[in-house]
């Protein structure tokens, strides 16, 4: 019979028409500004720089090694290495980025910078409200706009951040133990003075790093 398939199709659209009033599964549209989709943990959009503690300049993990700049496929990262050094979270004296710019109009959110970073300093953000009225400057993020705290990182990617923190704590403990052993050895050789000075060296940084546990 001619028209059978057409009637079947009509029945199907009618079913969907009424179904969309009944079933939530059918109507998948999210009414954006009022409704938001739940944040998926793995989501990524653009990179940011992690810092420990309260002060973004003090606690910045980035040591300006420029690996990410080299590996970035669209070459959207620009780093100037500092002239001087400052102590990092582990107490090692390191360079820091004098300039760290990411042009997110060029960035393609590929995450390769995160993968190659040996210092867990650059991670992927989830903030997609990035509209700007300035075509050129507004999408060029500088060091300050890129810096986000470790707490923020823990909030957006809890599983991944916990693993990173645990690893860093382990590293730090190792370094501490090493330093302690060195200090002990020194103390054995020399008396108290050396041990005190080494303690004095570590104390302020520990507070700046925040407690990773």
């Amino acid at each position, binding site marked *: *019979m*001619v*028209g059978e398939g*057409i009637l079947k*199709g*009509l029945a*199907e*659209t*009618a079913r*969907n*028409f009424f*179904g*969309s*009033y009944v079933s939530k599964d*059918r*109507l*998948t*549209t999210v*009414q954006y500004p009022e409704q938001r989709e739940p944040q998926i943990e793995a989501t990524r959009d653009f990179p940011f720089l992690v810092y420990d503690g309260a002060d973004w300049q003090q606690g910045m993990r980035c040591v300006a090694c420029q690996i990410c700049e080299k590996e970035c496929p669209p070459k959207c990262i620009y780093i100037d290495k500092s002239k001087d050094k400052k102590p990092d979270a582990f107490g090692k004296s390191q360079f820091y980025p004098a300039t760290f710019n990411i042009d997110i109009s060029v960035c393609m959110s590929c995450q390769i910078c995160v993968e190659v970073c040996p210092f867990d300093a650059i991670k992927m953000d989830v903030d997609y409200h990035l509209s700007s009225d300035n075509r050129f400057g507004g999408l060029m993020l500088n060091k300050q706009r890129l810096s986000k705290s470790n707490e923020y990182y823990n909030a957006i990617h809890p599983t991944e951040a916990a693993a990173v923190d645990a690893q860093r704590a382990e590293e730090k403990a190792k370094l501490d133990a090493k330093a302690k052993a060195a200090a002990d050895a020194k103390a054995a050789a020399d008396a108290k003075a050396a041990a005190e000075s080494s303690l004095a060296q570590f104390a302020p940084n520990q507070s700046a790093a925040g407690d990773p546990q």
Partner: protein
Amino acid sequence: MTCLALWMPQLDQIFVTASHWLLSYLPAALQPLASAILSVAAIIVAFATLFALTTLLERKGLGRMQNRYGPNRVGPCGLFQPLADGVKSLTKEDIVPIRADRAVHFMAPVLLVAASFMGYAVLPIGRNMIMVDMNAGVLFFFAVGSLMELAVFMAGWSSRSKYSLLGAMRAIAQMISYEVPLVLASIVVLMQAGSLSTVSIVNMQASYSGIWPHWFVFTPWGFAGFVLFMIAATAESNRSPFDLPEGESEIIAGYYTEYSGFKFALFFLGEYIGMFATSGMAITLFLGGWSAPFSFLAWVPSYLWFFAKLLTIIAIFIWVRGTLPRLRMDQLMNLAWQFMLPMTLFNLIIAGVWHFMPGGLLRWLVCSTMVVVPCILFGGGLKRKKKFQIRTYHFSQ
């Protein structure tokens, strides 16, 4: 209750009495002119509002069929969306192609809208609510309807665009082909009613046996005629699945490719108004015009029934649009000349048989068979010629 029963006829005639009352203030010499202006204004306002409502309903209905919300941002439930669309089309730049024929390019949408509105002159919208009770009303309606073809062709030709030209060619071929079955399908009603006047056609249908009305659609020939008329009307008004003249995936927007801004909106308006007009004619011819579907509902104002029927037909249009893919030109022509035309001609014979046979079950049986058999024959012929079928597939090992 008695109060309601008393008031209902008043309510039914409220527009008629109101216009009489308004006109009584004018000198007698001006009254015919003023009456015409008043009715024209009323029709334009009513159907332009219906157009706005339909665009919204269409988008919402299609949206729901496609599991979307449809427009719901402007105003409550998106009610002001048509208004926003209107403002948008008014503020858009009006672009005319350099090499276009500017005069014709301008006139085409105007003519289209004017032609599509003219048909309403003979449509009885309610009891005593008709602009001109012409005794050749149906003829006038189809004559005016064919003016739209001219407007469409003017648009396509004057734009000097290849897509517009293709669209216009398709439109002309399609609209002329479907005009034939459209008129032939309505002839059965004229045969039965013995009149070309729309008012007397509706009056014939507005009586009841028991609670059932005497609508022509409730006879075999009337049902076949109605279905054929609706198919032809869909093609006439370029609605999916017969929207080839503007098939957006093939020829951009067909004859109005080169129109923008308010002229584009006029095309849109003209198309919908034309669709309402042909639907209104289908209601008048087959669905008893403004008459109620059951005798006990006859107290509801007649114009409400008309619009209820109109909205139902529009809903079916939207439903079909949301489901079916478009036909191709040759298939469209095959349908017109190999199925619609023989069916409508055969329907004339059925109507004649119905007229001369004595009433009763036998008449019903004979006429129904006479509808079903050619339908299967012609439809099957269409299918057999194309040799399409559901296929089975095999798998490699």
